[in-house]
């Protein structure tokens, strides 16, 4: 078979190189559509590769390409090699397919930004890094992609580096894009540190970093529950909590909304945050050897899901609600991995990629229409004005809520059922409650954004509250006041395609009572798992309960927020402490700030001003100052009087002669 796997990451890299080097000189349309084209081509190659993969017999479903040896030191070697099995097949299809759609959407979304070349360079580079991450055949190459993704997220979150406050038309104060980018990067570094240590420990105990050998050695050399494998997987999981925004490292993701919306959709919904989930699923052999870690993964996952969902209940900013729902859904995926239902986790990853990208892009269309204003207290009534956005957003919201027959329903139900079947009733119950909360906050967002009467006036001018920010929303869109309109076709086409995905992707993985779980079957060569069979009555009961959770949540949200919605305000007034707790996101940011960021800054300042400024600089400066003072003293000898020099010479000669003569 011809080797084509390398083309999948290479095409976006080519796009990044060309846009990065000459993009500024290209016309806008050429530069941006080129970025889309490389992604589409990459998708084409990926589809072709996956078709080739499916043609292989199930027990040998791996396409392995080694390009060259990257490092080789003693017994250690790392190749630049790509590894396509059903698991990475799902990932490359998601990354390139949804990625291409988001790139296309970005053409329309960034149509008014003069820095289009920089944007598309970073976007393509991101896709490249992500594809390296999912296609790598060893942990070191995976780590390269992992870090590349981190860097690109920094570049893209901080894309509007010269703007200070992106909260338009509201009194809310968010982190500036610069600070958000730094926060994302630093928080991710904490996780990466764990990943690095995990890799070191892996090489130390198992003697290799390439997937095949690591898993083979792990199965033959390590016992279940051995301390070393527990520590190793906990370290790897720390890396996953960073990238996949789990407790305790989820805090970066909501602030990452400071980037342009296609970035939020691409990185913080569909691809980057799935890196941690992918990594854990990829290392399933190791994780299965460490039951303690698996329990940690499941508990962290369900806690993250629940806590993020409760925060999402009270947020006012549409994108923040979606961001917290991403954190929450990632928690579900971790829960699935933690109870050993790897294919269910990956299935939810895929369906989530569809509907969350869709929801973010829909929010972006709303932003475009409303001159960047996203405060849901001031939206409303957009259903008639933006029908395509409304209907696609509704489909995404139904999928996210887990409404029966939408994609999110099947994947979430599979996760919950897996929790139940493995006997973790507590986890299952928390998951069901979270599902109810999910449906509630999702439809709260839908109703507040699209339903009811407009809470804005036509022609109203919305600006940021930040006086120093010269970039007003009106500049960006060339519109003097609010005049909402449906987005252009480059933006609506991706919405429609993603909506189809959100509608139908779920049918790939039907529960056993409804049909065949093709998705799990497809992933079987990787995970070697078959579903636990339970009586159909129980299965129906579980399905009924998750459907009921979704429907009750949706119903409650409609009751609360349609018409003149006094219930939420009354509830908030009735439980002020709880409301403030949720509105302020459990004060986790403040907590981290006091406990870690402030002491860190204090320590950095101490080292900067104290050790570096006083001691090191003091030494260097002191030496220089002493020499300068000495020189200043000496320079007075150079009087500039030639006769003075002559006299000095004469005296010197006389002294020398006297000394010579007087010598015994």
């Amino acid at each position, binding site marked *: 078979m011809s080797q084509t796997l390398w083309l999948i990451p290479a095409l976006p890299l080519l796009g990044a190189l060309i846009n990065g080097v000459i993009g500024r000189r290209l016309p806008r349309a050429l530069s941006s559509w080129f970025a889309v084209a490389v992604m589409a081509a990459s998708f084409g190659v990926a589809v072709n590769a996956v078709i080739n993969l499916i043609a292989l017999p199930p027990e040998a479903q791996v396409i392995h390409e080694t390009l060259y040896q990257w490092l080789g030191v003693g017994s250690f070697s790392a190749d630049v090699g790509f590894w396509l099995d059903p698991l990475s097949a799902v990932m490359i299809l998601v990354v390139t397919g949804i990625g291409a759609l988001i790139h296309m959407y970005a053409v329309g979304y960034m149509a008014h930004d003069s820095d289009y070349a920089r944007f598309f360079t970073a976007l393509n580079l991101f896709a490249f890094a992500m594809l390296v991450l999912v296609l790598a055949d060893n942990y070191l190459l995976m780590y390269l992609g992992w870090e590349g993704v981190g860097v690109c997220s920094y570049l893209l979150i901080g894309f509007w580096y010269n703007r200070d406050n992106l909260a338009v038309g509201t009194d809310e104060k968010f982190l500036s894009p610069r600070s958000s980018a730094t926060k994302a990067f630093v928080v991710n570094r904490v996780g990466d540190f764990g990943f690095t240590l995990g890799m070191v420990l892996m090489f130390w105990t198992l003697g290799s970093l390439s997937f095949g050998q690591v898993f083979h050695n792990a199965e033959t050399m390590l016992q279940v529950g051995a301390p070393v494998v527990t520590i190793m997987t906990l370290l790897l999981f720390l890396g996953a909590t960073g990238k996949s925004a789990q407790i305790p490292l989820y805090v970066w993701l909501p602030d990452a909304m400071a980037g342009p919306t296609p970035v939020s959709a691409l990185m913080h919904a569909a691809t980057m945050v799935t890196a941690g989930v992918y990594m854990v699923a990829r290392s399933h052999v190791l994780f299965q050897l460490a039951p303690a870690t698996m329990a940690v993964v499941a508990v962290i996952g369900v806690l993250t899901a629940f806590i993020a969902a409760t925060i999402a209940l009270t947020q006012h900013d549409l994108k923040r609600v979606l961001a917290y729902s991403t954190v929450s859904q990632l928690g579900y995926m971790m829960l699935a991995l933690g109870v050993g239902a790897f294919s269910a986790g990956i299935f939810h990853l895929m369906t989530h990629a569809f509907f969350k990208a869709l929801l973010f892009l829909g929010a972006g269309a709303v932003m475009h229409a409303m001159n960047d204003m996203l405060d849901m207290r001031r939206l409303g009534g957009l259903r008639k004005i933006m029908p395509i956005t409304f209907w696609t957003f509704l489909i995404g919201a139904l999928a996210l809520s887990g409404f029966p027959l939408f994609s999110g329903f099947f994947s979430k139900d599979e996760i919950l059922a897996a929790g139940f079947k493995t006997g973790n009733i507590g986890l299952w119950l928390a998951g069901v409650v979270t599902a109810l909360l999910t449906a509630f906050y999702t439809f709260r967002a839908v109703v507040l954004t699209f339903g009811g009467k407009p809470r804005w006036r036509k022609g109203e001018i919305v600006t940021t509250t930040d006086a120093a920010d010269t970039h007003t929303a009106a500049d960006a869109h060339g519109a003097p006041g609010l005049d909402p309109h449906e987005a252009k076709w480059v933006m609506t086409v991706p919405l429609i395609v993603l909506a189809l995905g959100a509608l139908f992707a779920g049918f790939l993985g039907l529960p056993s009572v409804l049909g065949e779980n093709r998705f799990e079957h497809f992933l079987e060569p990787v995970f070697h798992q078959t579903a636990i069979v339970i009586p159909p009555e129980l299965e129906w009961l579980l399905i009924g309960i998750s459907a009921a959770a979704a429907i009750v949540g949706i119903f409650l949200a409609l009751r609360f927020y349609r018409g003149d919605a006094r219930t939420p305000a009354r509830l908030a007034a009735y439980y002020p402490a709880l409301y403030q707790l949720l509105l302020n996101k459990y004060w986790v940011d403040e907590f981290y700030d006091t406990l870690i960021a402030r002491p860190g800054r204090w320590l950095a300042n101490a080292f900067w001003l104290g050790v570096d400024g006083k001691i090191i600089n003091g030494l260097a400066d002191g030496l220089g100052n002493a020499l300068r003072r000495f020189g200043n003293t000496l*320079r007075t000898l*150079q*009087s*500039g009087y*030639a*006769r003075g020099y002559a006299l000095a010479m*004469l005296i010197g000669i006389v002294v020398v002669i006297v000394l010579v003569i007087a010598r015994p």
Partner: protein
Amino acid sequence: MLTVTHFTVLSALLFALGALAVLVRRNPLIMLMGIELMLNAVNLAFVAFSHYLENMDGQVFVFIVLTVAAAEVAVGLALVVAIFRARDNVDMDEIDSLRG
């Protein structure tokens, strides 16, 4: 009878005169003359010693000193002219651009 001492004393006097001229005068021309005087005082001593020791080495040195003196005057006068053109003034105490 003239002894070598007479010549040595004369040479020393001439040298001291030259050095005094270099040290006390501010006119570079006079200072150059003082330098010439010092060189020729040394020449006188060389010739005297050469005669009394009946060795020609001293006279060879005199020729070398004469040559050097000629070159020195050429360079010195050229410098004086150049300085005069640049500053309209050749007072040695005024020429102190390199004062520290």
